[in-house]
Each structure stands twice: as C-alpha cells, then as structure tokens.
C-alpha cells in the first residue's frame, strides 16, 4: 500500500449471505491489502462464523436476512464507530478484484472525491461484461439518471470507497438491491463529490449464479418508485 495511505484507517465492509465456497478466499486476498475487514453476515443459513474462525475480521451478524443494502449500512455504521477514514464496500461473492482498492482510494487520498465508484464501463475498464448484463446496466444507468440526475457509466457496481464525510452522511434505508441507486440519491442530497474509476469484475460461474438476474431489475425499479413515493 502506498506510503501516504499508511496513516489512514481503511476499513472494508463485506456483506455476506450464504457465500460458503468463496468467502475465505475473498477475505484472505483482502487481508493482503487492508487490515480491518467488517464482515456482515446477513442471516446466512449456515452462520458464516464457522468458516471464518481463524481469520482476523470483525463479524457482525444479522439475526434474519434483510438484504444487501441493510448489510452494507450495518457495516458502514460500525465503520463510523471505528472512526474509519475510508470505508470500502466490497461484494462477498468474489466478483471484485482486491487489487483495484489502491486505485479506488487514490482520489480520496488526494482529496479529489468524497465517494469513488467502481465502473465496468469506463474506456480503461478491463474485462468483458456479458451481453445481457451490459444491456440491463446500460438501461439501469439511464433509470438512475432519471431518478437522481447523476449520470454514471456503470450502475449497481458493488465496489465503492467513501471518505469520512461521506461515511458520516450516507445513510441507506433501502434494504435490498435498490441501495445501489440510493447511494446516488445520498451523494446528490449531501452534495458529495463523486468519481468513477475503472475496475475489473470477475464473472465466474459462482458470481453469476449469486448475482442479479435480469428479472431482479424489475424489483429494483419497483423499490425505487416506492422509495421516491414514501420517503
């Protein structure tokens, strides 16, 4: 890790729900980059503590499954308590590359941005996104733009970094997948500076099977409409 980041307290928030096979691998590779990992077990059927018994992480357990948005917010609330300078959200299914973390936090270290979002669709983004994913994400970014006025190149990318200001201000109330758009609502509401950087997403059979299906986008849209209606 670069020298200027040494004195910053960097915390990774890792929401986990029934991630049996890959979770140890994800955490072990993250531990090479960061020292503090907050694992939020979102009510997994087999409690994740059994798989993590020897890994130095902080484990928070939701008694019942609430959804990824709720798990991330629990992790962020705990990161506030730890007085983290930078909080990173990272998906538990192994789709993100831990090596992207350094470039993700760079704009925060140089104070160019309050929130840094990973993107699969910047010109420099490595890797290939499957066609249906690409199509839905293109559509989702337009929807996000219509709802938030923030036009990004990617939508629903789970890799993000927040500085202290953003960590204190952002508060997610959408428990399920609509939290990704809610991040943008919050960025706009609190006038946070936001930047996208290219990241690599691994589409393994596992992460595809765990990930969002096309029909889930309808649910997200419905949640967004309700969010706007009842906020």
């Amino acid at each position, binding site marked *: 890790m670069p020298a200027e980041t040494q004195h910053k307290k960097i915390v990774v928030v890792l929401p986990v729900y029934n991630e049996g096979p890959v979770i140890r691998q994800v955490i072990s590779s993250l531990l090479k980059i960061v020292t503090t990992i907050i694992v939020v077990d979102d009510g997994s059927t087999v409690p994740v503590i059994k798989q993590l018994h020897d890994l130095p*992480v902080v*484990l*928070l357990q939701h008694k*019942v499954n*609430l959804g990824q948005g709720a798990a991330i917010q629990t992790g962020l609330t*705990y990161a506030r308590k730890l007085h983290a300078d930078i909080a990173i959200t990272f998906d538990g299914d192994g789709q993100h590359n831990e090596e992207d973390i350094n470039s993700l936090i760079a704009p925060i270290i140089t104070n160019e941005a309050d929130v840094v979002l990973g993107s699969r669709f910047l010109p420099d983004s490595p890797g290939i996104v499957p066609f249906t994913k690409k199509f839905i994400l293109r559509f989702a970014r337009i929807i996000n733009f219509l709802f938030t006025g923030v036009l990004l190149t990617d939508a629903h990318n789970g890799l993000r970094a927040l500085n202290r200001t953003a960590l204190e201000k952002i508060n997610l109330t959408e*428990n399920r997948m609509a939290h990704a758009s809610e991040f943008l609502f919050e960025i706009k509401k609190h006038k946070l500076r936001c930047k996208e950087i290219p990241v690599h997403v691994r589409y393994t059979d596992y992460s595809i099977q765990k990930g969002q299906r096309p029909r889930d986008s309808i649910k997200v849209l419905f949640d967004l409409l*309700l969010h706007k*209606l*009842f906020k």
Partner: protein
Amino acid sequence: MSGIQLVLVTGFIFIGLYFITRLKKRLLDIVLLFAMISAGILFALRPDITNILARELGVGRGADLVFYISILIFWFVSLKLYARIRKLEQQVTSIIREGAIRNATEITDINIH
C-alpha cells in the same frame, strides 16, 4: 328493504363501528370514514342515485361507477399498507442492526480456543 340491501347496510354499519372503536381520536379519519359509510348505505338503499351520478360522470351504469371507485380505493389502501410495511421493515432493520453492532465479534486467534 331487499335481502342484498339488508346484508350491505348491516355490513357497512359493522365496519363503521369497528373502525370508530379503533380510531378513537383521529378526527379526520372518522369524518372520512363516516362519509364513506354514509355513501355506501345511501347507494345500497337507493341504487338509482348511482345511476344518476354515473350518467353525470359519463359512465354507463351505477354498478360500474361503484366498481371503478372501489378500484381506486383498493389502490389507495394497498399503498397505505405498503407504506406501513416499509415503516415496519425499517424498524425491524434498526433493531437487528443495533443487535448486530452490540454483539460484534472480533475474531482473532485467541478466541478460537
């Protein structure tokens, strides 16, 4: 009074009484409820009024008008219920979150044994 009128009017009166006992101090809700129940009873006893209203509003039959209004009320109630569910969900979330944070486990080699 025909059979169906008797059933409907009794039904409306029971629903009204039930809600009034529940909504003791919420004046606006009681007024709204009273208006709806009165309209219900009136339409049950004098169905011809719905026909006149329907014609005024450009709907063919009184029964159709009542049906359309019912759909609107159904949507309104569904949304109210949905809002209530979301509120409950947020309360549950905050309770579970507090519990999770209170019982945070810091896993180290020490507490394996």
